[in-house]
């Protein structure tokens, strides 16, 4: 198991290197002058050249990349052109915000997704199945900014139960939590739909297997068999949940905009529109890093849970 783990960790190194190269390239291939947002329109050519040299944009790409990578390895992702603050700080703060609602959204989505999935898988073809399937399709296909706005109208504007936007007073845990609920619920419909579909298919497949007949033949009741269904479905269902968390970490630009939530989606959005190259690169790199690590964790979890996967 330890050897397996070590090998998996080593395998992620080339992946991360590739990821950083791709994200560096993508950002630089895009047309437009990176300094346009900070330079006054009438800046002299001399000033432009000075700033360019200051940020290192005058160097060949390969030098820029290696420098950037070298600093990144030490935790320094450069300085945001727009705000002048450290990219690392900005990204870490944004990830922190997104992580909060993403985790909450994943938990909500996993809970209801599993619930719908189990009901639908157990009672295939019944009205319950159709309702659960409808809800899960809705979850994947409904526009999230729209859902977000509907929720805001209902729960904030009409009922007044929850705050409509913002992150709230962070010294109060309860206030912070109340601000997280609407964005997290809005975000949760995606993992909910996907988890519901996955679990439904898993449960249907498990129930059709011969070993379920074997369990009946042992005198197990439906409750006793349920335990086996859960344990068989768990590795895949949890893996899907982990990957969903990864996707949600990218933040949803639309959801974070609707709720003015200062997460990664929000930061990426600003970085793109302001052509803030260091911030854009840094954010993408950190997100990619999270995603790769999460994948690794999911894989290891699955290996630990599922005895059928060879640990070699």
């Amino acid at each position, binding site marked *: 198991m330890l050897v397996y783990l070590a090998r998996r960790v080593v395998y992620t190194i080339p992946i991360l290197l590739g990821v950083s190269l791709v994200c560096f390239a993508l950002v630089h291939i895009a047309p437009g002058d990176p300094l346009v947002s900070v330079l006054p329109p009438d800046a002299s050519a001399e000033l432009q050249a000075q700033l360019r040299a200051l940020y290192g944009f005058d160097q060949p790409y390969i030098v820029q990349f290696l420098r950037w990578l070298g600093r990144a390895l030490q935790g320094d992702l450069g300085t945001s052109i727009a705000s002048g603050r450290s990219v690392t700080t900005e990204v870490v703060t944004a990830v922190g915000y997104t992580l909060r609602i993403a985790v909450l959204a994943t938990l909500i989505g996993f809970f209801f997704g599993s619930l719908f999935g189990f009901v639908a898988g157990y009672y295939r073809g019944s009205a319950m199945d159709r309702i659960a399937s409808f809800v899960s399709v809705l979850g994947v296909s409904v526009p999230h900014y729209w859902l977000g706005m509907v929720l805001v109208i209902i729960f904030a504007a009409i009922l007044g139960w929850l705050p409509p936007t913002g992150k709230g007073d962070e010294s109060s845990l309860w206030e912070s939590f109340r601000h997280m609920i609407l964005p997290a619920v809005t975000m949760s419909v995606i993992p909910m739909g996907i988890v519901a579909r996955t679990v439904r298919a898993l449960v249907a497949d498990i129930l059709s297997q011969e070993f379920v007949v074997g369990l009946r033949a042992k005198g197990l009741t439906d409750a006793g068999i349920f335990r086996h269904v859960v344990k068989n479905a768990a590795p895949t269902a949890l893996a899907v949940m982990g990957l969903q968390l990864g996707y949600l970490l990218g933040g949803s630009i639309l959801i974070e905009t609707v709720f003015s939530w200062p997460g990664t989606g929000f930061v990426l959005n600003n970085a793109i529109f302001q052509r803030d190259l260091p911030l854009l690169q840094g954010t993408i790199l950190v997100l990619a890093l999270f995603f790769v690590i999460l994948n690794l964790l999911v894989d290891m979890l699955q290996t630990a849970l599922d005895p*059928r996967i060879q640990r070699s």
Partner: protein
Amino acid sequence: MSAVDIRDLRVTFGGVVRAVDGVTLSIERGEVVALIGESGSGKSVTLRSLMRLHPPRATKMEGTIAVEGRDVLAMTPRALADYRGPIVSMIFQEPLLALDPVYTVGEQIMEIILRHEKVSRKEARARALALFERVRIPSPERRLDAYPHEMSGGMRQRAMIALALACRPKVLLADEPTTALDATVQIQILLLLRELQRDLGLSIIFVTHDLGAAVEVADRIAVMYAGRIVEEGTARELIRNPRHPYTIGLLKSRAHGVMEKGTRLDAIPGAPPDLARLPPGCSFAPRCAAAIESCQIEQPPSFVVEGGHRARCFRWKDAPAQLGAQALGAA
């Protein structure tokens, strides 16, 4: 009281497929009966009916099944669950599919013990270990912690047998317990079953494609065709004096060396009838060389040949001669 008494059992799936169509069979305590017949003749369905393992909504079961004096078809779900395991249990054809892949075999054996008896986990584990020793699994302590896919086919089938015996059942149902195994392992498993049967006084119904295995292990043999038992008798009676053309066909295919151990009983020309549209007369008529006109119109009843030897054939007296059974007997 017989261990198993099946009367005129009819099992219909989805309202049309008559997989079992009037099976009457009784098994004495301590007796081993083999069910043989081509694939699709209703052997597994008959066996599973004894534990009511068919999907309840899609299945209609008629007739009566009494096991150790209990009316199986009248049982409540609770009574049924209590009955499965300690009274009757089953050995499946493919243990790799019949065992849960994500639990160790030890856990699965402990589970059935804990389900039916008030014992501690420690005791249950000790019992599982003793069972593994009983079915002669080497390094049993270690093997208890193995997952099904980590064992060889033969070991897995031994573990399956241990599981089936865990709650000391009175009746053991074995659905082609050796079909998935290599020839040498098949023999070991058959011998093990026979030994356990003697030691524990089990009644066994044993389904097989393999006439050789049936003769080896069974006291009596029942031959199934299209959901009916067409001939039954002791192994000796059936081999020496077969009365039904289908049985004769099976024996012939074997006598000609076509039927090696484990091969399918498919040496008779033609195919079994569609169970959703059974002919009005004898269901073997379309393939039968001895068929006469009345075979097409009426179903043959079960004729008594001698003692417990019965055949469902209008021509049970003369069909064998016509089909050359004498030559067979001489071979």
